[in-house]
């Protein structure tokens, strides 16, 4: 029960991750718990933002894989974080690939053909504001931005995890941030317009995306002007 006592005593400062990784490599179960506490929210957030539906289970799978093979790991906390998110990235790719495989059974005439499986999952998983930002990104931009920000990985580590070049990652990250900014600002503008009109409902999260249910509202003229001329 010492873990619980320690958990109450103090949070998990990141600078101790080095010691925990070293202890975990030695088989210390307490260190596993501390690592889980310190990194599992970010890993879970990354998976959710990627559109992984059962993100809790996949997060556990990621940590199980990491703990099972931690004996082979050699490096510091930053390297361990990169290693862990690389595992998470591969898990997410596997899960999303499976979803796409299942989606092949959907008739081609389905109006949702333009939307990706990740977008479908995002509608159910991610909060509206974050979803608005992520949906404005391409899957590649989303992947890089999440690894860079949520995973706290460097450009080089992101490049290594995704199998891209450093230059490509830099470009993707730059464009992702710009697109996310535009999405957030447009969402704020739409909220302001909606507030001015007294509309209680929030503006649609997806800008310019086709309405899957066919129940989309025609964009308001002022919103349109705001989006065109922010």
């Amino acid at each position, binding site marked *: *029960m*010492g*873990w*619980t006592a320690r*958990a*109450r005593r*103090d*949070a*998990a*400062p990141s600078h101790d991750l080095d010691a925990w990784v070293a202890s975990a490599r030695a088989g210390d*179960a*307490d260190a*596993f*718990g501390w690592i*889980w*506490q*310190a990194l*599992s*929210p*970010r*890993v*879970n*957030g*990354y998976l*959710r*933002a990627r559109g992984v539906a059962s*993100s*809790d*289970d996949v*997060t*556990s*799978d990621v*940590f*199980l894989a990491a*703990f*099972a093979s931690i004996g082979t790991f050699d490096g510091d906390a930053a390297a361990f974080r990169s290693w862990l998110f690389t595992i998470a990235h591969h898990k997410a790719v596997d899960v999303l690939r499976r979803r796409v495989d299942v989606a092949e059974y959907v008739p081609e005439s389905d109006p949702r053909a333009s939307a990706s499986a990740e977008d479908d999952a995002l509608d159910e998983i*991610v*909060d509206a*504001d*974050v979803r608005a*930002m992520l949906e404005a990104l391409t899957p590649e931009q989303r992947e890089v*931005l*999440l690894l*860079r*920000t*949520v995973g706290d990985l460097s450009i080089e580590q992101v490049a290594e995890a995704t199998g891209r070049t450093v230059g490509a990652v830099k470009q993707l990250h730059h464009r992702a*941030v*710009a697109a*996310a*900014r535009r999405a*957030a*600002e447009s969402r*704020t*503008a739409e909220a*302001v317009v909606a507030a001015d009109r007294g509309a209680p409902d929030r503006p649609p999260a997806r800008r310019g995306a086709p309405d899957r249910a066919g129940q989309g509202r025609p964009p308001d003229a002022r919103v349109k002007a*705001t989006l065109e001329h*922010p």
Partner: protein
Amino acid sequence: MSRMTPHGVETMLRNWADAQVPVPSPALAQFMGPLVPLPALAISGAQLGGAAVQAGITTKVIIGVAAIAVTGAAVAGVNHLRNSSTGEPRPPQSTAPVVPGAADPSDQPAVGSPTTSAPAASESAKPEVTESEAPQSESPEPTRSSAPREQTTTSPTGDGDRPSTETHRPSPTGTSDDDGDHHGDDDGDHTDATPSTSQTVDASPAPTSEQTTSPDPQPTPSSTGRGKGKGKGPSKGHDDGHDEDDED
């Protein structure tokens, strides 16, 4: 239009991700043994504090809660001092002002100690409101009406405070108040009290009493009025009377 910086985008994503605390699967829990954290413990205090501070809510909330706590503690302390300042903490006293009308008839004789009168007056501030209304409402009146009558009788005597005080005692906590007021009025405020009202009509001789009657409940300092008579008693009576008049 608000502009979001790249840092704002990253901060927003990080804060959102920090809140996505997962529940470990049974396999992982077994792997970690009994050390698996509870979901509630999976968020560290630093993470919560950092996220809340970045959200800009915690500071205000903390300040607000702290202000409320300090204010409440101060009020509780003042009330405690009020209750304790009387000397011997008496449960009937504390309860008496709270229930002005009901407690009067039964408890009156026991309460009438002189020491209590002063604190009762201080505490009477809250009952004042009820008392101001009291002249209209009849519940407080009966005790008071009896008191003023006797007072009126005493008032003509002027110096005859003793009998008046004795008669006042039976009037309860309110009596203590009554005593103080009456004495004060009798001594100093006769002129002020002169405009008699309906209640005073009963105590016809005591036009003075009438204001005193309306202030009856408040002015507890009967004891002071009694013993010292007119010097100090009136002063307190004046204060109480003025307060009442003001409130009325």
